[in-house]
């Protein structure tokens, strides 16, 4: 039984579409655009999530105020954020960056709060006996402990970020993998759609295994097996 190329292209046809995208330069340009959206948004999400999370971990009053708000943000579906962002920022990079950031911020924030509050009291007591200054407490106790919590949540966050990036670009941007995917859909180029899906999966793998994992080994050498 054979399906039409429009319904389900074969791997060979998908490969050919991928080669076409590569030679026309579309592939590199889209990858660069989406990576820029993703990196800007994810960096912002990590920075904000970690800063707010650290403050919430130290100040329980701040945690009580901000945690329900971030919880509510987490409950809003990314598609709703895209609609709001389109109204606020119009179509373009800002909408995509905002949507990715707001979709990944809660996961980073909550893991930071968890990391801050789960530092063993026994270690804090030990540090107290040496009259450890707060700056050193943060640098030598909280921060390394936090890293072991942050990496798994960053891995999960990155997976979400790629998916949201493609979705957001599809609906709101004229550049990037999502926008190219949308164009291929309009032109009924299913082989090209498949090629873009394959590219997205490859990028998720690259970010997880070639960037995040080596970074984890570098920054948390005590966790090496």
């Amino acid at each position, binding site marked *: 039984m054979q399906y039409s190329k429009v319904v389900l292209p074969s791997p060979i046809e998908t490969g050919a579409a991928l080669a076409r995208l590569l030679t026309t330069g579309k592939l590199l340009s889209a990858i660069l655009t989406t990576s820029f959206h993703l990196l800007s948004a994810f960096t912002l999400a990590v920075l904000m999530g970690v800063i707010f999370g650290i403050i919430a971990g130290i100040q329980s009053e701040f945690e009580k105020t901000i945690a329900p708000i971030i919880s509510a943000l987490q409950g809003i579906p990314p598609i709703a954020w895209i609609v709001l962002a389109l109204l606020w920022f119009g179509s373009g990079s800002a909408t995509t960056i905002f949507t990715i950031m707001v979709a990944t911020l809660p996961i980073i924030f909550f893991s930071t709060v968890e990391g801050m509050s789960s530092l063993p009291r*026994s270690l804090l007591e030990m*540090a107290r006996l040496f009259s450890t*200054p707060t700056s050193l407490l943060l640098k*030598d106790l909280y921060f390394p402990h936090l890293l072991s919590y942050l990496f798994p949540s960053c891995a999960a966050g990155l997976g979400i970020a790629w998916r949201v990036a493609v979705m957001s670009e599809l609906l709101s941007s004229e550049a990037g993998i999502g926008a190219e995917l949308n164009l291929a859909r309009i032109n009924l180029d299913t082989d090209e759609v498949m090629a873009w899906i394959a590219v997205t999966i490859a990028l998720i793998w690259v970010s997880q295994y070639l960037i995040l994992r080596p970074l984890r080994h570098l920054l948390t050498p*005590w966790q090496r097996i």
Partner: protein
Amino acid sequence: MLILDRISYQYKHRSILEGISITLAPGQILCLSGPSGCGKTTLLRIAAGLIAPSQGVVKNKFTCTGYVFQEPRLLPWQTTQENLAFGLKAKGVAKKERDCASKQLAQQLGLEQALDLYPDRLSGGMQQRVALGRALAINPDFLLLDEPFNGLDVGRRREFQLMLLQLLGERNLAACIVSHDLAEAVRLGDRILVMSPAPSRIVYQWQSLLPPATRDEVYIYREVAQILALSEVSRCFNLNNNSSHPNFMRS
């Protein structure tokens, strides 16, 4: 000099310590002994200033106090060298000086080969030696040790005890050691205070007539037997009631 004057401590309306007075002179080794759960660690924590007594006064006139916890409490993300130097870092000592001090301590504690290892790569005995080194690094004149030999086999325990005695002697440190093992207390202490079960009081005080280096096994076990023969001590360790549970030994 450490003075604990009529220390009492209540926790959740339960009396843990009652009217305990202790004086510890510089260079002296004091062992706190008693049954598990009698409040030895609580008393040590009060002496260290980690918790405040409900009643009584703590006067710690030593200039620098070190503390070795029952469990090593090493930072899992720091190497042996960094863990050894943690107290110095907290005091703002420069890295070069810290490295020099930690290497010297590692040599004294037999940890030269482990300087670059993380705690999870060290044995229990090595971890405890790092914890001792960390406490010694800040050059204390008074050391508090809470059952520091827990979880070590008999050989490692003896080795660690001798090392501790040597280090305390070399530096002329005063020490307060918590131990529920009377033989260990007789081996290490110039003085032993036996505490009763909670609400804990001091029921017996033992003073050594020999310096630690000259105490052999015969002396230690004879002294332990004599201490345990005292009714107030044997009552503390619940030794008088053994005859009421003969089923453990029968059949």
